[in-house]
């Protein structure tokens, strides 16, 4: 049995004369949490929309556990759960009714649906809100419901498109913990985000995507290591200049020197944003 859950080969998407994806290729392994990280308009959502069957690609292929998504579409859709960026729940329906409809859409039996609804509501700590209309839930609870709805049919691959966008930091961390719980159950997760700290906290591997191209793939720690573990930012009228250092001693020594020359200097740990800026010359 191959260890590859998802294999994307030379995927292109063109809108008129504009390329949203310029031929991206990558593999995601079973049980892995893989993040697509990049600024708005980089092609992250387009990639997820194509994988989930919402958007047709211009060319290229996608293999789910070795089978082509485009020739085995119905089979592949059963393997995938999608959590879209925009909360697309039926606001007038109850939590339970939203999950019930999803179960029927994925051809689950009534017995399976009932059992799974209870399991997932317990997992998401939403059991007491089963009969609440979705419009009565807070943003964080809606987001959690959106995630468990995608898990109703027990997909092996979960696609999360900007799962914490617009949420406050406290709720965001709760969602992160929830995502890690899902991964621990063996689900392969592909996550898009433009929050660097989110990708850093959750991902096994990260792919940087910019202007429709994958520019690098590696683990967060390897990306950081390659650049250096510590950074010094020097603030001036011309902007911020960052210097990278392999260890703390080197960085502290340099900090002393820079402090004598520049009024605003700071030492910090290297993060994925530094990696992205180094790779593209742009801020996320």
């Amino acid at each position: 049995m191959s260890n590859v859950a998802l294999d994307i080969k030379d995927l292109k998407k063109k809108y008129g004369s504009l390329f949203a994806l310029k031929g991206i290729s990558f593999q995601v392994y079973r049980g892995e949490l893989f993040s697509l990280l990049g600024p708005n308009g980089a092609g992250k959502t387009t990639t997820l929309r194509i994988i989930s069957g919402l958007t047709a690609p211009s060319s290229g292929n996608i293999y789910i556990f070795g089978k082509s998504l485009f020739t085995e579409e119905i089979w592949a859709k059963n393997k995938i759960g999608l959590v879209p960026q925009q909360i697309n729940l039926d606001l007038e329906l109850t939590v339970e009714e939203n999950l019930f409809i999803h179960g029927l859409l994925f051809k689950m039996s009534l017995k399976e649906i009932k059992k799974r609804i209870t399991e997932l509501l317990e997992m998401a700590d939403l059991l007491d809100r089963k009969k609440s209309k979705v419009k009565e839930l807070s943003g964080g609870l809606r987001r959690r419901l959106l995630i468990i709805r995608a898990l109703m049919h027990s997909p092996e691959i979960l696609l999360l498109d900007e799962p914490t966008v617009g949420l406050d930091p406290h709720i965001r961390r709760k969602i992160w913990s929830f995502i890690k719980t899902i991964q621990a159950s063996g689900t392969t997760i592909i996550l898009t985000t433009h929050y660097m700290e989110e990708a850093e906290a959750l991902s096994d591997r990260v792919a940087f995507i910019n202007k429709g191209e994958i520019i690098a793939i590696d683990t967060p720690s390897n990306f950081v290591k390659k650049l250096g573990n510590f950074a010094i930012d020097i603030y001036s009228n011309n902007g911020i200049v960052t210097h990278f250092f392999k260890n703390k001693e080197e960085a502290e020594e340099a900090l002393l020197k820079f402090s004598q020359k520049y009024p605003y200097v700071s030492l910090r740990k290297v993060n994925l944003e530094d990696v992205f800026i180094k790779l593209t010359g742009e801020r996320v």
Partner: protein
Amino acid sequence: MKGFLAIYLREVFLLRKRLFKVLLSFSVNPFLYILAFGIGLGKHLSIMGRPYLEFLIPGLISASSMLQAFAINVEINVARFYLKVFEEFQSAPISPLSYALGEVLSGVTRAFLSVLIIIVLGYLLGGVKLNFSGIFFLVVFLNAFIFASLGLASAMSIKAHADQTLITNFIITPMMFLGGTFFPVENLPPLIKPLIEILPLTLVSKTLRAIAFGEEFYYQNILILAIIAMLCFFIAIITIKKAKD
């Protein structure tokens, strides 16, 4: 099968949540037409040897079942452009046929609710009792199926909800007024008449009137309506396939 049921039940759940409001809104237009045209204007009027109110009721049934079935486009547009629930259906392993069947049958359900309201209002306000037989409801079903399919096809073809108004204003509203709802098509000028005769609603209102009055009618009309229904349903399925961006 379950895919179709999911789509249909979703619409039924939504309908159930606002049943009172829906029934109330379905009642307003028939109530006004029956009161203003049927009773106010048509009290001393007879058409085809019958009181005008009796003539009006089958016409209102055909027009109202058309309007309410076509109105599923509004629900679909809300699901597609506002709630984005349509994407949930697109990412599910269901065929365009299942999706179309679920939506169209929900349109048919809405149409039947509106028809029942007209029958009750006609009886309560004007004491109208006609021959509402099984074959009468079969024609209503076919009419609702045709226009629910067209409602679905139009909802899938537009790029923004605002475009929907154009289709309703230029196709559905004229058909309601000219398709034999309020007056016999035979009264129209010879130049326009052939054009109006070929509209599905004209065929429906003529057939419904004949059945409701216990008169002879062409059974071929039902076959023609069934063929049009299949054709419109096929068009709706094609538009669903094309809705993927």
